[in-house]
């Protein structure tokens, strides 16, 4: 009788169907927002002194790393919650956040490399920021190597969580602290506060768009992870 009531409830049925998806108005807003960012980056944004026409890369390269950093920090937080509650959904969220964080960082690095080729004459210069982000990518790549080597789902979750909590210390260290003190080729106007207000506004808008994209991709990845857990019989 309880089951009949559940399946005939349209609100519960709709909620179940849309679990892990983004409401359509937000999808439309995200599409318009990022389209606007692309348009503004190419046709509206003023060029930065010294960067010239390559300025537009700034509005993709920098926000990708900002969102990547948030995702990797969330990996540590979700891992901590998993160790406290031992509920597998938190490990699923941690792995999803790590995947997306790594993806965003890799994309930012690729974009930066193309930019470096134009600005600094080589695809890779061992600049402190380039080197430290490479270390971060290797660190989180190792997180997935660790996870894939453990067959038992609870053990994978526990060991992965411990690793992620330790690794999260590296995120501010490698992305902000070390590059700040080791001067290299990267300029630092955002941190130093000398950035043009219009450029800062555009960066914030681009960051908001990429953050929205991350949220959408994260929800989808968690939904897929949940199906995988159900199939394995661990949820």
């Amino acid at each position, binding site marked *: 009788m309880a089951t009949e009531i559940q399946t005939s409830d349209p609100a519960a049925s709709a909620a*179940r*169907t*849309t*679990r*892990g*998806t*983004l409401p359509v108005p937000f*999808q439309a807003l*995200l*599409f318009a927002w*990022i*389209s606007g960012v*692309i*348009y503004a980056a*190419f*046709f509206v944004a003023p060029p930065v002194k010294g960067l010239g*026409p390559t300025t537009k890369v700034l509005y993709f390269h920098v926000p990708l790393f900002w969102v990547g950093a948030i995702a990797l920090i969330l990996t540590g937080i979700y891992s901590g919650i998993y160790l406290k509650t031992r509920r597998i959904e938190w490990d699923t969220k941690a792995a999803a956040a790590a995947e997306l964080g790594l993806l965003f960082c890799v994309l930012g690095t690729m974009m930066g490399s193309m930019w470096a080729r134009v600005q600094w004459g080589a695809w890779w210069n061992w600049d402190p920021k380039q080197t430290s982000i490479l270390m971060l990518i290797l660190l989180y790549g190792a997180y997935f190597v660790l996870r894939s080597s453990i067959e038992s789902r609870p053990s994978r979750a526990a060991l992965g969580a411990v690793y992620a909590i330790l690794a999260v210390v590296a995120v501010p260290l490698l992305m902000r602290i070390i590059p700040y003190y080791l001067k290299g080729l990267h300029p630092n106007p955002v941190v130093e506060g000398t950035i043009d207000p219009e450029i800062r506004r555009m960066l914030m808008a681009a960051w908001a768009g990429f953050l929205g994209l991350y949220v*959408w*991709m994260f929800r*989808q990845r968690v*939904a*897929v992870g949940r*199906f995988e857990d159900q199939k394995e019989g661990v949820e």
Partner: protein
Amino acid sequence: MNGIDPNAIVAGVTFVLWLGIFLYLLRLENKIKDLNR
């Protein structure tokens, strides 16, 4: 090719890339909804 702004070409390619990503995510949305049922 004379008179075509290279900036506009790159902007167009970037937009098409974004459109492709967006449509892919929409396709995933529908698959997730199907699996949820």
